[in-house]
């Protein structure tokens, strides 16, 4: 029986050891937690105004009362984010549980001043999973966005999170930036972070009430608009839609998108293509001691819509369509690079490419890469667009009719 005594005492020992691991002693019943889905940080004077969107679980249960909002917004002003979060317990009976944080919004003032202060907490806190997305509130307060009542999903945080994910997938000018990405970009040399912009359109006041979802056409709506360009952790400017699209192509973030161009040969109307896949290759080289970047983008897509009367079955026309769309994209990409150069911020990671290929040169350059990117870097962009399919019909039916 001695053996069993041994095993038994070993078991007891292990369990007693567990008692000392206070890290494991964080038992929380679900009814003592407020699940936070979204968090907003506004700069007010010298303090951060932190707003959290906490789920009201009773409104998610079966016998929910309809006149309660599905989420509650708490906000608190403190010089640090962590303090503000803890201070919220003075307003709520439950602890703010931030593991399921989906979404963080900074207002423009915070972003322009630098986001590393709030980011420090977000990385340090062990409860937070680094899989949330971030955005910068454009022309409105982060608190307004946090308190926004969304029309589709019951939970606004979920609504915005999903919208960002899907728009990045099928509409390239947004960029769903994961917190992990921004962290690695902040510490990496030769590449600067970006954050997507989030704006509220319409009646912002009404957008924060349940009136917003009582009508088929919402009184207010949120929109992902453009990409905010950061230098280190400070926002310095915005890219418009076309430039944002260029950014997505160059950084290989365009998974599926729609590109539009004027019909070739002076044809009337537009045509557009649905991007299926796109691959950008960045090839750095050094010519006459000046850095050169060649960006080769190979994209494939299908015709999505044609407004002009042309015979698409004609190989010549097909080639022209491809050329037109390639040129159009070339211009967009060029514009994007131009805008970045204007800001003097290498958001594309060209510097990183040099770092890899020419580590020796990079050591000289990295101190003044911002300047070099702005003035010396030559960027050569080549877009090759290949049109694969025409959809269910080949020619526009006006053309078919005339045949």
């Amino acid at each position, binding site marked *: *029986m001695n053996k*069993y005594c041994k*095993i038994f005492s*070993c*078991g007891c020992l*292990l*369990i007693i050891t*567990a008692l000392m*691991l206070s890290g*494991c002693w*964080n*038992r*929380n*019943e*679900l*009814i003592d*937690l407020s*699940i936070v*889905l979204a968090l907003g940080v506004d700069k007010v004077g010298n303090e951060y105004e932190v707003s959290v969107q906490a*789920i009201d*679980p*009773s*409104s*998610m*249960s*079966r016998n*929910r009362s309809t006149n309660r909002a599905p989420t509650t917004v708490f906000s608190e002003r403190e010089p640090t984010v962590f303090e503000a979060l803890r201070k919220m317990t003075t307003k709520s009976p439950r602890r703010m*549980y931030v*593991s*399921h944080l*989906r979404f963080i919004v900074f207002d423009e003032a915070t972003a322009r001043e630098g986001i590393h202060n709030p980011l420090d907490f977000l990385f340090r806190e062990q*409860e937070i*999973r680094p899989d949330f997305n971030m955005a910068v509130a454009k022309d409105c307060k982060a608190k307004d966005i946090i308190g926004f009542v969304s029309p589709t999903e019951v*939970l606004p945080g*979920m609504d915005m999170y999903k919208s960002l994910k899907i728009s990045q997938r099928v509409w390239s000018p947004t960029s769903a930036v994961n917190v992990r990405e921004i962290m690695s970009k902040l510490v990496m040399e030769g590449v600067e972070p970006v954050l997507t912009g989030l704006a509220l359109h319409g009646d912002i006041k009404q957008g924060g009430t349940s009136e917003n979802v009582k009508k088929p056409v919402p009184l207010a709506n949120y929109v992902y608009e453009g990409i905010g360009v950061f230098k280190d952790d400070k926002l310095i400017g915005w890219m418009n839609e076309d430039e944002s699209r260029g950014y997505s192509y160059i950084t290989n973030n365009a998974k599926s998108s729609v590109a539009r161009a004027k019909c070739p040969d002076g044809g009337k109307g537009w045509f557009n293509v649905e991007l299926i896949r796109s691959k950008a290759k960045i090839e750095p080289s050094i010519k006459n001691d000046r850095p050169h970047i060649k960006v080769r983008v190979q994209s494939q897509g299908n015709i999505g819509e044609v407004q002009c009367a042309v015979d698409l079955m004609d190989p010549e026309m097909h080639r022209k369509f491809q050329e037109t769309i390639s040129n159009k994209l070339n211009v967009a990409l060029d514009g994007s690079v131009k805008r970045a150069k204007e800001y003097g911020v290498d958001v594309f990671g060209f510097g990183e490419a040099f770092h890899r290929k020419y580590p020796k040169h990079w050591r000289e350059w990295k101190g003044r890469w911002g300047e070099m990117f702005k003035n010396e870097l030559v960027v050569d962009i080549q877009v090759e667009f290949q049109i694969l399919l025409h959809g269910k019909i080949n020619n526009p039916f006006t053309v078919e009719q005339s045949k």
Partner: protein
Amino acid sequence: MDRQQPQHHIQIQSEREQSDQLKNVGEFRSALKDNVNTISKILGSSSDLIVRELSISDHSKVALLYLDGMIDLKTAQDSVIGPLLNQSQEEEITLDYLANRVIETGEVSTANSFSEAIEQIVFGSLILLMEGEQGALIISIAEWEDRTVMESKAQPAVRGPQNSFTEKLRTNTTLVRRKVKDTRVRLDSLFVGNFTKTEIALMYMDGVVDNKIVKELHQSLKSINKDQILEGEYIEEIILSNKQFTIFPRFYNTDRPDTVAAGILEGRIAIFIEGTPFALLAPSLFVDFLQSAEDYYQSYLYSSLIRVLRYFSLCICLFAPSIYIALTTFHQDMIPTHLLISIAGQREGTPFPAFIEALIMEVTFEILREAGIRMPRTIGQAVSIVGTIVIGQAAVEAGIVSAAMVIVVAITAISSFVIPAYNLAIPIRIVRFIFMLLATTFGSYGITIGWVLLLIHLCHLNSFGVPYMGPIAPYRKRAARDAILRFPFRSRDVKQMSGTENQE
């Protein structure tokens, strides 16, 4: 039989009295009347003792003694009484003569002693005493009412043999013998239990079985000194009492002849016990309890999938409530956001912590299950309706427990019935409560610790010298083919099928 514990002392005394009583009867007397009187005195003139005296010739008188209902009356009539009355020999009738020339039944023997003759009466023999002879004939025509061979209730199968054992040992051994027609099949019988004198039969294949285990079993069975052996569990407990302690079963019990036949072919020993339709198989390993006979009667692909499913349900049965508790009280970050919100919505307004909630539901279920088994079959329906309403609806509607918890308890309960061997489901159910406790106190860390300890314990066990977790740990490739999956028959031969023997 705990109720009889206080009387134990008295029982032992009376047992001694009885054996003294039998010892004191001494030798046969020559007067028939004396012998008959002694016997009926010893049996306390029981009302079922029948004494039939016959005059088979002018100067020969015999007496037949038996217990009513214990012998086959028709055989007694046709093959014993009839021939005795019709015999025409006039002189020098001896017991030997009757045994050899007159009595027509199969088993007739001469009693060695008076006490043996008396003892044989209670075993269901017909005793023949003769005037002037100091001896007795024991005519074995024991026969009593028995259940017919019916479908297996404990381990039913969709396809495959449907018959099952009965309470009669001979029927059971015959059912197996008829499946394995090999001369190497051995059957050893012995009687155990001072009062019950229960017949126990060991059946095994000579040459396939490990003789050491047979010897060991023989010895431990012989050394049993208990008053009563009424079921296999008595034997299991007594044999295992001086081995490693565990709540996990080390005897497989079955009422299916085909399972026993397969078992002895694999080198196991079957233990039949008179009076119970459940035979024991030893040695039995952990994987055996998760196999069912039907696995071999369905296509191997299907059976393999079903076996994997069984291991899966075993895990659910063991872990589902504890994982639920751990996730909802410690590791909320591991639950997908939508699910967490939904669970949080359900937990809203429930008064108890998750562990108490789980405990309430699990105990309620155990009560219902026990009630369902003990209850007369006709009321079973009512219990299940009440159970469904009480557990399923009212508790949730009243806001006492959350709906998610009901789902967890329900899936746990159903999973426990997927385990084919009932005696494995019992320890799993017990261990489940321990895991729930660990989960409440230490979260998944506690579950991991518990799981490691459980594995250590299981790997440490052996069943008659065979590692209990074999052929998985220690891993034996060929034998493992029939452990968790079922490989096609062509890829293995019968002998290697066993998890038990590995004697290379």
